[in-house]
């Protein structure tokens, strides 16, 4: 068996793959957070809960309506996105002229409520969600065995991340969005409906979280607590990357997933801590974050 630094290559690659999968979710979630924060100046604490909601929508569609994975892949983000639109219209839009911390506190409350509801009805244990038949099984890559679904998650998250990046950086709608981030009043004066843009952005961010949730359902179990622990790691990712750039959020997400995977190989006890340690180091060396512009 080939060894690198005394570690079998298989084990190393296996953990790197796990890291890449985790990194895919970090990237998708921190991307959504960055998009929302960029325009709304709100840190969406409910992002983890919306991720959980996406997974549960998929699970409920399957168990109650018999709707499978592929339609759910479209429906779950749509439903979570609509939920986001309602939340923004009813509540968040009233908080724009207050301190940004109130947005954080409101979405924190929202996350507690969502998590509480699902915990009340479904308990804390996870519910399994089967891998769709098309992606069942695995492929032997010669040097390691790759479960097909995990490969799909990585590909799908790359498509989602770069799709979102292209939407924001390369389209007309994206240019309105970026302009409104810089100067909302001026953009409004040019006849762009900024409140609508804000609503759509929050909806889009929520939908991204929902999409990550349904993608995660077959990998991790569908559980009410799946979002809350993840969101804190994603916050650390966001601090490391800085929320100034969309691309920065994506790259940092993948990098930290990989760093976590590597730590699991060499020093498993610290694998929970490594993202936070990296955050502390980045704060010492470059307080604005790796890709951050604002100090």
């Amino acid at each position, binding site marked *: 068996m080939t060894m690198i630094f005394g570690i079998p290559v298989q084990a190393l690659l296996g953990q790197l793959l796990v890291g890449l999968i985790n990194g895919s979710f970090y990237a998708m979630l921190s991307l959504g957070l960055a998009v929302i924060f960029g325009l709304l100046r709100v840190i969406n604490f409910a992002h983890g809960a919306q991720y959980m909601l996406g997974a549960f929508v998929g699970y409920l569609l399957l168990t109650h309506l018999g709707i499978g994975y592929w339609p759910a892949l479209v429906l779950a983000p749509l439903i979570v996105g609509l939920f986001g639109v309602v939340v923004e219209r009813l509540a968040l839009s009233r908080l724009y002229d207050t301190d940004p911390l109130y947005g954080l506190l*409101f979405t924190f409350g929202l996350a*507690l*409520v969502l998590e509480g509801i699902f*915990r009340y009805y479904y308990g804390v244990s996870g519910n399994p969600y089967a891998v769709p038949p098309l992606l069942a099984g695995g492929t032997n890559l010669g040097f390691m065995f790759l479960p097909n679904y995990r490969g799909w998650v990585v590909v799908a998250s790359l498509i989602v991340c770069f799709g979102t990046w292209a939407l924001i950086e390369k389209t007309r709608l994206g240019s309105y969005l970026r302009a409104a981030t810089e100067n909302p009043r001026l953009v409004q004066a040019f006849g762009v409906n900024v409140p609508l843009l804000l609503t759509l952005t929050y909806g889009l961010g929520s939908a991204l979280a929902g999409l990550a949730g349904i993608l995660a359902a077959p990998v991790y179990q569908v559980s009410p607590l799946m979002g809350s622990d993840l969101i804190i*790691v994603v916050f650390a990712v966001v601090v490391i990357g800085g929320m100034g750039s969309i691309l920065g959020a994506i790259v940092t997400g993948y990098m930290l997933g990989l760093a976590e995977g590597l730590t699991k190989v060499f020093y498993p006890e610290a694998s929970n801590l490594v993202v936070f340690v990296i*955050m502390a180091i980045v704060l010492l060396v470059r307080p604005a974050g790796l890709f951050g512009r604002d100090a």
Partner: protein
Amino acid sequence: MADLSLRETSAKPSARLEWALVGLGILALLAAPFFVYPIFLMKMLCFALFACAFNLLLGYTGLLSFGHATFFGGAAYFTAHAVKVWGWPPEAGVLLGMAGAALLGLVMGFFAIRRQGIYFAMITLALSQMFFFFCVQAPFTQGEDGIQGVPRGMLFGILDLNAPMNMYYFVLVAVLVGVFAIWRIVNSPFGMILRSIRENESRAISLGYSVASYKLGAFVMSAALAGLAGSLKAIVFQFATLTDVTWQMSGEVILMTLLGGIGTMVGPIIGASLVVGLENTLATSGFPVTIATGLIFMVCVLVFRRGIVGEVYARVIGRAGTG
């Protein structure tokens, strides 16, 4: 960050009334254990001090820490370990808990004050989650079981804390000292500088204050006092568990402060009493506490950001202004 806080008012005529109310409140607390279950009262007192300590940071310095559970729960662990394993007397255990919390506060504050506003909140949250994982793995916390069966011991070698009344009055005195300390800090020249940082940080810098050191100082003091609350709780309940270091606990203390009134002295005490009372009521009803807490959060943020005490103050001042 100015609008997070309530503008203090120098409504002079009401000052005497306030002192009378404080006196009445202390009298009520002295008499309370004869009417209400003492353990419940002690829990309330511990959380009241915790919320006041948190408010020192949020209300008077304008820093939202999402990691105060680290100091509360961390101090509880230190005290429980010192008293149970090393056989320290309770007063020494509490002091060690405070010192430990202050040290944790120094480390967390050192990193967190490098960023402002929302980032500050996220960094404190992430670091406290790191401490949570540390507590899950470190052997001395005994993982999921927590440190159980902590002896209450003899206070100063003479007062047996196993008697509920002795325990109650010890907690009451310690909490009152803690709250008095916060009141002194807030109304000292140091506290005035903290408020100036809250109101306008760049101005404070340009006036020559070393804002970072003041923030760190406030952070450490707040951590130590939150630690006092956590240490007392460990002695009262005779255990220290992971619950007290979770992010939910950090959220809870924010809720208490927000509900009562950010930047008021009495607000956090009232908020803490209400939240603890509510949790006690819900515990028997089967309605999930998290849903209730979350709903109160959302209502507070949307409808009355000034909190209960803040709204009352605003009404009184409003009337004085128009009348």
